């Protein structure tokens, strides 16, 4: 036990390197593959990149949004193409490192407030499309704000966190599932990262994946249990899901609010009806029912 602890604590420095050889992770090609910026924009919408990287009333992606968490306030940084304040100087491998490994070009660990524990699951071609889109974001010379954290102020501890909590690499299709279910699972887990708000977390702030989507109490807002359990959303039909994902309306005519309305308005309402159907089917048939 003690030994394990010592070993784990010793890892952060070497951690990044050893984790790099994880098998599921394809090494990024040095030159960027040709991505489709329009498809990337759609992915960015469903992945909600703008919400955390845009201040209220601010320029798109120029940063400044305050994300409240139990660990303090994170500020989404400027990810426009500005070379000084944004990521205009980044290369494709820099981008892949950030999204898959949660690591900055100068080797710092990112906080998982940036949902790379979900984005790590993105397929290579989707990452390429996102990269193509990110490169179209107009530069804005606005400095990023520092985070105001009460815990985990030192990034060095994040190396250990990643070892324990980050399951890295693109999500592989499950051969037992049909194409639509695999698509739904991928959209829910990798792109839309529903679990970031709806899956309970352990004391370290890592998602408890065996209780996926069973509800989370964490700020800024508790995300309810959305599994097909009879005491949760077990009674929802495909039409109920379509209405929620497109309009934000609940079966009784009430509407979701807060963070969820943003997810709907900028994300699930914008994607194709086929993709909404895939998400709905995964949530009805693929996700394990969890008691509230």
């Amino acid at each position: 036990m003690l030994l394990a602890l010592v070993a784990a604590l010793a890892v952060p420095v070497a951690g990044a390197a050893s984790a790099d050889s994880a098998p599921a992770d394809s090494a990024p090609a040095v030159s960027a593959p040709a991505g489709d910026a329009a498809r990337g924009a759609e992915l960015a919408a469903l992945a909600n990149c703008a919400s955390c990287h845009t201040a209220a009333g601010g320029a798109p992606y120029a940063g400044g949004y305050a994300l409240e968490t139990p660990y303090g306030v994170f500020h989404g940084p400027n990810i426009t193409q500005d070379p000084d304040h944004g990521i205009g100087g980044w290369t494709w491998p820099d981008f892949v490192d950030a999204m898959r490994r949660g690591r900055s070009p100068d080797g710092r660990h990112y906080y998982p407030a940036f949902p790379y524990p979900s984005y790590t699951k993105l397929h290579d071609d989707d990452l390429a499309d996102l990269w193509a889109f990110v490169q179209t974001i107009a530069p804005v010379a606005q400095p990023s704000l520092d985070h105001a954290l009460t815990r985990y102020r030192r990034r060095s501890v994040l190396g250990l966190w990643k070892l324990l909590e980050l399951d890295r690499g693109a999500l592989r299709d499950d051969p037992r599932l049909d194409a639509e279910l695999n698509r739904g699972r991928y959209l829910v887990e990798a792109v839309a990262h529903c679990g970031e708000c709806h899956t309970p977390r352990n004391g370290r702030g890592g998602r408890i994946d065996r209780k996926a989507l069973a509800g989370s109490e964490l700020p800024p807002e508790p995300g309810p249990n959305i599994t097909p359990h009879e005491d949760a959303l077990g009674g929802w039909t495909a039409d109920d899901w379509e209405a929620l994902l497109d309009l934000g309306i609940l079966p009784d005519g009430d509407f979701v609010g807060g963070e969820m309305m943003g997810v709907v308005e900028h994300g699930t309402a914008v994607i194709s009806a086929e993709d909404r159907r895939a998400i709905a089917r995964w949530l009805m048939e693929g996700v394990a029912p969890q008691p509230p």
Partner: protein
Amino acid sequence: MTLLLALSLALPASAGDDAPAASIQLDAQKVYAYRHEVFEGIGAHMKALSMMVKGEAPVRQVDMKSHAIALQAMSTTVPHLFPKGTGPDAVKDTEALATIWTDPEGFAAATKAFQDSSAALVTAAEGGDMKVFSGAFRNVGKSCGGCHDNFRKDDH
């Protein structure tokens, strides 16, 4: 006109003080039961319209308009649904938050968002373009969530 304007401007802020026309003894529990029914009705009209927007119900412009008018009409009752003394201190089951009475300007703004968006819904229904209507419908939906976020209990 000026008087009317002044009156209507004064209304939202003082809404909490509004006494019912006939000054029957205000029973907090009954006020709650009434407003609960009103919101259920509002929800029912929204649900019915959503089925039209999603193509699950026959789309007749005249019916679309009826629902929209009903919503617009009900939106004008909201300022009267929350007299002082009908909050969580007085009614066990209410999901109304005390912020309704501590932040009357915020509540009035949330009410106005519903009134404005439902008025726009009537206009859209009269226009008859489903795409425009669907956009107007989404805006009404946002006004519901916008008020619930700050003035209704979360764990719904």
